[in-house]
């Protein structure tokens, strides 16, 4: 079916930190905002992270705590219309009058009826388990999104749900006390009119198994930083405990490896992801705080401590907490078949020595890449992308969040690597820019 919204408004594409922040600012500026998110709930990447800098007591803010209330606020805001499970089908028109077609994929669960009682997830017979993916870990075919995502309404994994595979099972809908589950829910195309568009598509992760010599997905005890974030988060699969996937034992030594797939000609990601040095410092510190006797090593190329309070945090991590920093990018990792320990061979570029290091666990910081959807959106809008798939700006200095098309703005990672703080600031800025242009247009200038 086709439904057409008539109200003029701003559309924000992407429901992560940047998108949410931009939407809130615009909504508070009195505009009607459509927030389009491809996932079943908003929150984006940040809900996969843990709250830990709180515990570090350095002059640096926790990345998560200030954001969570924003997610809830955004979800309840009267001026924000949230379209989850949504995909952009096409965009036409120009500044002041964009016509955006959004495909709202069915969720099969009525958000208003669902009371998040969890009866369905309990009864669901299908359990999906990915030994290498701690983030998703073990879950049912119908499962709740991560605890901070909003709304807390279960999601059905169509690949694995018996109903969608063979039509044999409807246990969840049988047990649902509020009859919120409806398998006949169907696609819906929504037409949205907008005066401006803000792109906040965020990032995607480089798959470290592409760097074969590190053995990610070959060795169980080689994990990514996101897995660690999940482990250390109290809601994670291990309830906040750091364990080796091979034997569920707490590691006595951990090595973090930076720039996996980034700053590398080999993967053509010659850029720096801009955040890894600091979240690694943070997590390394967390490991030390949780278990001081753990040996922690960090392999780095340059320490990117350019932000407010970063150097101070780093000093604390290296000097007071005793995390060992080694300058050099390891050449390879080998697993001791017996103990499942990992042997890292590397050149310490500050001593020019080739050495070997045996650790219980290796944590990789994969490159953060622009979101693949950028290509599609760029096509719809006729935007320019750079060779990596980031949106281009007409002038990176004077117009940092404009795009090559009038009325379309960017914020967050989709314009280039940046952290939560910069993304949020950019989001507010983009909102300011949008109001400026719209008011100017209304005043008949520009």
């Amino acid at each position, binding site marked *: 079916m086709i439904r057409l919204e008539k109200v003029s408004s701003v559309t924000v594409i992407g429901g992560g930190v940047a998108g949410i922040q931009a939407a809130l600012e615009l909504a508070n500026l009195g505009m009607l905002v459509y927030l389009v998110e491809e996932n079943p709930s908003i929150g984006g990447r940040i809900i996969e992270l843990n709250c830990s800098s709180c515990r570090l007591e350095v002059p640096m803010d926790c990345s998560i705590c200030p954001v969570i209330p924003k997610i809830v606020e955004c979800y309840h805001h009267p001026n924000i219309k949230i379209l989850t499970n949504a995909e952009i089908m096409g965009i036409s028109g120009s500044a002041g009058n964009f016509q955006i077609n959004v495909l709202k994929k069915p969720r099969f669960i009525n958000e208003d009826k669902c009371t998040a*009682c969890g009866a369905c997830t309990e009864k669901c017979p299908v359990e999906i388990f990915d030994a290498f993916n701690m983030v998703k870990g073990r879950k049912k075919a119908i499962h709740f999104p991560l605890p901070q995502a909003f709304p807390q309404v279960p999601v059905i994994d169509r690949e694995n749900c018996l109903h969608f595979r063979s039509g044999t099972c409807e246990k969840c809908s049988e047990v649902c006390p*509020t009859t919120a589950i409806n398998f006949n829910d169907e696609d819906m195309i929504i037409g949205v009119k907008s005066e401006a568009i803000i792109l906040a598509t965020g990032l995607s992760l480089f798959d470290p198994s592409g760097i074969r010599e590190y053995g990610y997905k070959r060795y169980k005890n080689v994990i990514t930083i996101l897995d660690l974030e999940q482990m250390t988060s109290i809601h994670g699969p291990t309830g906040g405990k750091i364990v080796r996937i091979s034997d569920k034992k707490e590691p006595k030594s951990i090595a973090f490896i930076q720039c996996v797939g980034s700053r590398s000609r080999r993967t053509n990601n010659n850029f720096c992801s801009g955040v890894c040095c600091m979240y690694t410092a943070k997590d390394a510190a967390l490991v030390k705080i949780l278990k001081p006797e753990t040996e922690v090593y960090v392999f780095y190329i340059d320490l*990117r401590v350019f932000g407010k*309070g970063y*150097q101070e945090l780093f000093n604390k991590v290296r000097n007071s907490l005793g995390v060992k920093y080694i300058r050099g990018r390891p050449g390879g990792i080998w697993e001791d078949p017996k103990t499942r320990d990992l042997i890292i061979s590397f050149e310490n570029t500050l001593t020019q020595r080739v050495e070997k290091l045996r650790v219980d666990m290796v944590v990789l910081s994969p490159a953060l890449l622009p979101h693949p959807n950028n290509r599609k959106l760029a096509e719809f809008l006729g935007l320019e992308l750079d060779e990596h798939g980031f949106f281009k700006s007409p002038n990176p*200095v004077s117009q940092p969040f404009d795009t090559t098309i009038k009325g379309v703005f960017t914020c967050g990672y989709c314009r280039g*690597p*940046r952290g939560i703080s910069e993304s949020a600031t950019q989001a507010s800025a983009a909102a300011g820019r949008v109001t400026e242009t719209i*008011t100017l247009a209304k005043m008949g200038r520009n």
Partner: protein
Amino acid sequence: MSEANLNQEPRIGIFLCDCGTNISSIIDVPQVIEASKGISGVKFVERDSSLCSSAGTKKIRETIERSGVDRVVFAGCSPKNYGSLFESVCQKAGINRYLVAFANIREQCAWAHQDRPKEATIKAINTVQMAAARLQKSEPLQELEIEVHPSTLIIGGGISGMTAALCLANQGFSVLLVEREPDIGGMLNKLYKLYLTNQEVSEILNPVIQSVRNHKNIRILTSASVREVEGYFGDFEVTISVNGGTEKFRAGTIILATGAGTFEPFGMYGYGKHEGVVTQLELEQILKQGKLKHLEKVVMIQCVGAREEKGLTYCSRICCMVAIKNATLIKKLYPDCEVYIIYRDLQTYGKENEEYQSKARELGIRFIEYTPERRPEVFPNGNGKVGVRVYHALLGETLTINSDLVVLSTPLIPNADGKEIAKILKVPLGPDGFFKEAYMEMRSTAFGVNGIYVCGTAQGPKSIDESITQAYAAAALAAIPMQQKKVKIPAMTAEVNEELCIGCQLCLDLCPVHAITFAEGKSMVIEAICRGCGTCAAACPSKAIAVKGFKDEQILAEVEAALK
């Protein structure tokens, strides 16, 4: 809207939401209802399974209007979820939102004690009683609604200030731009070319200056400084001293864009001692005036006075890129000139910067890494040359470069008058001396105090694009209340009982937002500023301060009820 009549004794209505099976499957709801009926003043207990649904809210309204209660308890999920929703529903139904209390029996009873249903039920009963007891002592409150004057004072006429000014002026707000220097433009006036784009600074700066000058909504005061700021959010009374006299200005919001200063490394690496040792900024000047004579060797030293254990501990963020940019300019000017950059960690974060760096390497600029343990040495080397001895950490060798020019990259430092402005505006400075924002992560351009915002290098070292970004962000935040014209301040503010106040002024020092003033021996709370944390109330030796909505009586009532 009918308000609670306080003469008659409270009439309380309780809505209990069993949230589908979420609560009812663990807690014995009927038992809770029975117990709640017993509470004095309770007129009804209404059970429902989804109050948050539209049907639910409709029901709430009808029930309230029918029963004529004047206070309401919601027993169900955490107020963090739908608290504001229920409050506004009650408001619509004629019950003051401050006569609504919540009993969190889902998150904090049913879910947290799933393993022990019996105790969970008892705790739930207790929780409802506490909420009711609290209500007994509650009074209706009115939110203070303050007019926000559609005008902004922007302190600092650099790129950040000007950008913010334009953004707001274009939205039709009147802006006063106050610049301490005789001319606007700020730090950029001193610069030559920009990194990333390599274009002349003027290409970016001049158009901005022009449109700021010509904008009918912007008034510029140069050689001026802010003397005094009275009043509060929405209606600041600003006194500016300009050419001898003073001027007054009325501002709804204030944006701080005072920029940063530069560190002068006297005594370091022979700066000020030997000829041919300059700072990047000075080099920038020389290049700008086209006075750079042919050179054979140039050495740039990074992190001069920055990233230290003590003193300037922070990384100044932009120096690496500035050095690479100037090195590139020199290389383009004199391709045969050898340019060395002696760095600690290259802060070429992100995409553009990294690419800019690799271009520089292709040009043949040489990078030498040093460590804080073994710093380079600079010594005069006869006939105007300066020798640089440096331990190349990656080669493991000590090199000596006989250079014509040594350029020191020094960090941006907090502005000299930062402290004074902080005092005038009652906003905090961080440990690094830059202005301390409210929350780095989500509100890097706002302060704890309403109505005052910060952007640009005043908040910390930043590149030009980042400053511009922050300027827009600050402008957006400032625009919000001015667009809304009226802003509601939560009624939960402190108030001083003048009879009881003994004038000890303890509260003045404790208030984090300086909302308390002192006059005629008594403290006085400026509601528009107060954010109701209650630290003052807890400290007041004579119990003269009460926090509306969180009065001692209310909390103590809860305490007693909890321990019945």
